[in-house]
């Protein structure tokens, strides 16, 4: 049986690149992600540098099949985020290689956050009006999601500025 360890760690939604970097550092140290879900990461032992790991927000199951066709393994996912690993010996492994597709990705995250934010806002207002006790919690969630939306918007604006000059 391979050695295993589980780490609990939270990343902000706009920090997905930092999360990916951390997972690749773990893989460099000989720990490859084997399972994940909300706030937990289970790693198993691997050869240091054996794998490259990538993550993306893409709910399409057709997409998952497409990436697998390219020799990658689907590790798991959490609220529309999918995690893949591929052997480093197969060459460089990336999910988004141009500005346009990175912008599309950010728009997808934006859409999901907007929906969640709106739902929390509506729940928060109705709960508060009905004097329910958890109304403020929904409003707090909505406020935090708005902040996340602002961060994603900032990332998009920076990319769009770059896109106006080159691909």
């Amino acid at each position, binding site marked *: 049986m391979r050695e295993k360890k589980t780490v609990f760690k939270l990343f902000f939604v706009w920090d997905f690149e930092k999360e990916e970097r951390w997972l690749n550092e773990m893989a460099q140290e000989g720990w490859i992600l084997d399972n994940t879900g909300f706030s937990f990461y289970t790693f198993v032992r691997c050869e240091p540098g054996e794998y490259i790991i990538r993550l993306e927000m893409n709910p399409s199951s057709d997409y998952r099949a497409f990436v697998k066709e*390219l020799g990658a393994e689907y590790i798991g996912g959490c609220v529309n985020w999918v995690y893949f690993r591929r052997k480093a010996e197969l060459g460089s492994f990336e999910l988004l290689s141009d500005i346009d597709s990175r912008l599309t990705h950010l728009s997808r995250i934006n859409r999901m956050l907007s929906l969640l934010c709106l739902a929390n806002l509506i729940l928060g207002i109705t709960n508060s009006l009905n004097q329910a006790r958890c109304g403020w919690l929904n409003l707090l969630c909505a406020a935090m999601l708005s902040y996340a939306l602002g961060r994603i918007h900032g990332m998009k604006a920076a990319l769009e500025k770059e896109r106006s000059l080159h691909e």
Partner: protein
Amino acid sequence: MENLALTESTYYILLSLYHPQHGYGIMQQTEQLSGGRVHLAAGTLYGALTSLCEKGWIRPLPAESGSRKKEYQLTAEGVQVLKHELARLQQLVANGESILKEEAL
């Protein structure tokens, strides 16, 4: 026809699909044609294939039995788009060359 420049990724995907090809084949051909300069990542390629199918510039081929890999090919409209883009690129090159040559004198 819309007079819009294609992105480098789109241009190479369309070129690669002059003959039927699956995802991995498109990546390899693009890398080979561009001398290793243009690398198509999985998600970028997937997104582009989906939108190019919607536009009708390429089409998925009926899956052969026993093969899981989906193949795509250029449509007649896709060939037109490529020809249009080639003419645009030729003009870009010609303009660049003529002006930079003058500068060199």
